[in-house]
């Protein structure tokens, strides 16, 4: 007697349909044959409403971070929404100073999305999760009608453990502190623009999407925890917006040397073509570190010694400023403000 047989999911030419989100057998099958298989770990395998996990070590605090991922197109040079969904949240934990421990993933799938592409995304996500050593321990899948979604959205949430001695935070920058970046700015944002149909140009620009917790650990290994004032990943809004956020939170200003900010030559060229500023483009594998002045050299050396920080640079300092402006010294020798991103970075003609 055959009681439980189900035909295997058609991962070659099948598509997501409403049944996959209805919570019945088709949902269970999608979870079992795609998600559970790709993310394979004991917590997910339990199939309960959540995952039961060992708590952090005594004295450690919890860190929780979340990000929704809605990138378009879903595949881009250097990554896809799956790897991005891992890196985006792991990095938010990393820049809190935490050791990332666990991820959850909530998928919102659009009716009609090819299962083969979904599998590519899930496999990429699983690979990124394994490479980062941060398992996806629980998840959820919903399906929305065609025209009410955009292929795949993934919201990930991460839990990390924060050692007692660490406490970086956006409000901790003080005048005199040094601002470092771990590498070139704008690679991710431009990689996405390059593959948008409406702008298409050819370049070798790849997203910098990467998990930063190793780089953060290298930094903590190299300098006293107290010397690390602020860590942040300049994602949406780019370096400019992130520096402004830090300035506002800390109630300070900043002086940045434009020429010191690393920008990939092709990103720079593409920015010229489109009328964009690389300092407003998103990064997904870069760190901003504000460190105590006496530790700046050690911090820079530690960053540069790590593969993800080889192009790290010292770009400026924190200053007193009641208006917490971020000011830029231009390569020409002038001064200007580096303001918050206003609106979306849209290609300009003027």
């Amino acid at each position, binding site marked *: 007697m055959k009681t439980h047989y189900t035909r295997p999911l058609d991962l070659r030419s099948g598509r997501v349909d409403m049944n996959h989100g209805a919570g019945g057998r088709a949902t269970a099958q999608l979870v079992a044959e795609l998600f559970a298989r790709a993310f394979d770990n004991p917590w997910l395998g339990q199939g309960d409403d959540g995952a039961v996990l060992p708590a952090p070590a005594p004295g450690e605090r919890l860190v929780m971070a979340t990000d929704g991922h809605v990138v378009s197109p879903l595949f881009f040079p250097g990554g896809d929404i799956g790897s991005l969904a891992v890196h985006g949240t792991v990095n938010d934990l990393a820049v809190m100073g935490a050791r990332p421990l666990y991820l959850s993933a909530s998928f919102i799938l659009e009716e009609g999305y090819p299962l083969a592409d979904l599998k590519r995304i899930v496999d990429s996500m699983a690979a990124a999760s394994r490479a980062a050593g941060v398992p996806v321990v629980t998840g959820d899948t919903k399906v929305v009608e065609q025209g009410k979604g955009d292929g795949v959205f993934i919201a990930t949430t991460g839990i990390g453990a924060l050692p007692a001695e660490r406490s970086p935070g956006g409000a901790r920058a003080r005048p005199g502190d040094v601002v470092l970046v771990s590498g070139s700015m704008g690679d991710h944002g431009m990689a996405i623009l390059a593959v948008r149909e409406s702008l298409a140009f050819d370049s070798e620009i790849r997203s910098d999407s990467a998990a930063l917790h190793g780089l953060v650990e290298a930094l903590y290994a190299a300098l006293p925890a107290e010397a690390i004032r602020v860590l942040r990943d300049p994602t949406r809004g780019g370096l400019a917006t992130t520096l402004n956020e830090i300035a506002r939170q800390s109630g300070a200003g900043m002086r940045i040397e434009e020429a010191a900010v690393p920008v990939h030559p092709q990103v720079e060229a593409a920015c010229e073509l489109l009328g964009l500023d690389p300092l407003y483009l998103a990064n997904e594998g870069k760190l901003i570190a504000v460190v105590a002045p006496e530790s700046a050299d050690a911090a820079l050396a530690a960053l540069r010694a790590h593969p993800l920080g080889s192009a790290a640079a010292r770009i400026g*300092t924190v200053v007193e*400023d009641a208006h917490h402006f971020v000011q830029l010294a231009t390569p020409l020798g002038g001064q*200007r403000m580096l303001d918050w991103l*206003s*609106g979306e970075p*849209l290609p*300009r*003609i*003027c």
Partner: protein
Amino acid sequence: MKYVDEFRDGELARGIGAAIAREADPARHYAFMEFCGGHTHAISRYGVVDLLPANVRMIHGPGCPVCVLPVGRIDMAIRLAMERAVTICTYGDCLRVPASGGLSLLKARARLDKNRADIRMVYSAADALALAQREPQREVVFLAIGFETTTPPTALVLRQARALGLANFSVLCNHVLTPAAIRAILHAPAGAGADARVKLDGFVGPAHVSTVIGSRPYDFVAGQHHKPVVIAGFEPLDVMQSILMLVRQVNDGRAEIENEFTRAVTREGNLKAQALVDEVFTLRDSYEWRGLGSLPDSALRIRPEFAAWDAEAKFGLDYAPVPDHKSCECGTILRGEKRPADCKLFGTACTPETPMGSCMVSSEGACAAHYNYGRFRDIPVAAA
């Protein structure tokens, strides 16, 4: 980037800056208007003022195509999308330009039924034409804006549309003419603040506009108004060099049309492009410029031969002017009488997110450039 990086060199900049400081007469003030937003942008983005002596002041002109686009013209496009179920295609710059009722194309887009209408950004006029070809059931209107640089591409797609007999494509034309705007600046009646009015000592002339129209159309500035013009490239060194050349003309008492941008601008301009524009467009009797008012012979309209692809004719559109906010000082700022921070709306009601006046619209506008790049100059900042 060849022919780009060399024109941004810091050391050369300091050299030219030193020359300006050396040659500028300490006993007098120099006020030059850079007409173009491209120059305004270069000046602000590179902090060029910091390399200029205090007695050389740059006044930001109206040469930004989205800044001068009046509310009523954006309203026309929004109405087409909302009421006539049309897909508006336009350059990214236009999407945030404020229209009536707190709307902009971007905000209007959020209110559309996208199954029927849409508002889309294009990189090029050709992309709008391609969309109309690809989706024949979609009614596509290209909202064309710009000075003499974007006009030839629009002319090309109009010619193509006619050749293809494309029934679902038209152009809402807002192409304007640089010389007319310069003329308006020179003729502007003194406002209430007439006493404070700054005498312009000369113009930094347009870069890319001049590649198309050549240097000849500026002759009247020197001839009739006795003001020097130096056509300059959009790189910061080009701007600085042109300022140096203007200082020299002023010092010499000369008023000539000089060309710093010889690598791209000739006296005649691009004759092929000019002929094309002439084939497709003709002068509008009058066109309203945001901040400058209605100016005669200052803009182009589509010739009757192309009426089937002229959105104004095709949809029977009428232009309804919408007054600017009464506290907006754009007019006086454009004439150099006031500075952005003098406007009481600056930085409060009027910001790049919620612009009230034309000068705050694009990052090339005088107020926006000051907000984005120069605001810190209004207050003392403690040094690091």
